[in-house]
């Protein structure tokens, strides 16, 4: 892999060519707000727009989303300019209008000084309550888990992740990776008496034979066993008591 050097906020860093700006910044302790990007998920990013930065290259400047902008030779990035903050405030104001009940968005907006919105707010327990329609959950389910239980349905302002017909999906394994990845905690995952409920479906959990904690859905064990050929008994114990 070709190494290049890139300047971020006046400091020079070595990085592999084509790594995204956000990744390089994170590794070097430079904070850029982000929501829809997850470094483990190739198809993530580019949707929430909060990670925008100034990219200076060849005498020109563009505002770009740092989570999918590749570092190249001669690139200089500025993450902390008045322009970046002004545009980000606009993005956050829109997000706040869409999901005023999301703590994450409220905090991120407040950090930029945005506490009020000039637009009609979308409040309450509606169908996509805290969801900013970034599709990270869908990408995780498809790319990382590989089951495609959910997809982004509807369009425009109604866009949201859902199972077909909002019914329990026949392929969902109840792993909860979508809920874990969601930047705003918009996906409901409940667990009670050894049963997990997610996406309208109940999953019986396997209990650890040592501590008795229900820790993984049976359906997920089935899936892993069928995909990897791993021995079933491996899942008798939870990760804490495995070795």
């Amino acid at each position, binding site marked *: 892999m070709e190494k290049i050097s890139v300047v971020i906020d006046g400091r020079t860093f070595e990085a592999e060519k084509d790594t995204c700006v956000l990744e390089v910044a994170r590794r070097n302790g430079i904070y850029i707000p982000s929501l829809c990007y997850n470094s483990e998920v190739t198809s993530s990013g580019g949707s929430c727009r909060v990670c925008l930065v100034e990219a200076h290259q060849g005498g020109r400047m563009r505002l770009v989303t740092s989570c999918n902008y590749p570092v190249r030779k001669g690139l200089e990035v500025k993450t902390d300019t008045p322009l970046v903050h002004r545009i980000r405030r606009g993005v956050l104001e829109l997000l706040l209008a869409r999901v005023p009940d999301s703590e994450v968005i409220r905090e991120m907006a407040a950090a930029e000084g945005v506490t009020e919105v000039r637009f009609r707010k979308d409040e309450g327990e509606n169908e996509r309550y805290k969801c900013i329609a970034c599709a990270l959950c869908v990408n995780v389910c498809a790319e990382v888990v590989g089951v*495609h*239980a959910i*997809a982004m*349905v*509807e369009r425009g302002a109604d866009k949201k992740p859902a199972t*077909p017909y909002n019914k329990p999906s026949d*392929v969902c394994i109840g792993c909860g990776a979508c809920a874990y990845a969601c930047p705003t905690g918009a996906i409901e995952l409940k667990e009670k008496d050894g049963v997990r409920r997610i996406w309208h479906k109940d999953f019986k959990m396997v209990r650890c034979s040592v501590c008795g904690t229900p820790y993984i859905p049976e359906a997920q064990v089935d899936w892993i066993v069928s995909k990897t050929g791993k021995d079933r008994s491996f899942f008798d114990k939870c990760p804490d008591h495995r070795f």
Partner: protein
Amino acid sequence: MKEMTQIQDVSRFDRIIDRYERSEESLLAILQDFQREFHYVPEEGIRRLSEVMGVPASKIYAMGTFYKALSLTPRGRHTIKVCTGTACHLKGAPQILETLERELRVKRNGTTEDGEFTLECVNCVGACAMAPVTLVDEVYHGKTRPSKVMDIVRKQVEG
């Protein structure tokens, strides 16, 4: 008995699916054929298509919700669209809509009880010079008047 109908059901989808190549590119065309044949895209159709094509049902369902030309709920044999775009609105679209609602006994975006008509509003169909515009099964009728609109509908569907 239930099983019988189920088997029959699947074959009516397979007849359509079999006309196409087994590839993701065929999906939209197949959904359009479902729409034409059944006047909507039935859930069992999506599930069968997913099974045959090996494409996740979630993806096909998402397509179904995305395209305006596809409907996931049963629709009438005929679709009446009243343009309520700005020009048509000013030229009396609301009255046309009211007339149709009253005469057909159906609310906008609803389907008549006999499954004959679905009534819809659309926003500017790009024929403002003919405002107000009413479409019956995609046939444009310009300068429609409330007193004439039922005649137009009847004449067209009765051939």
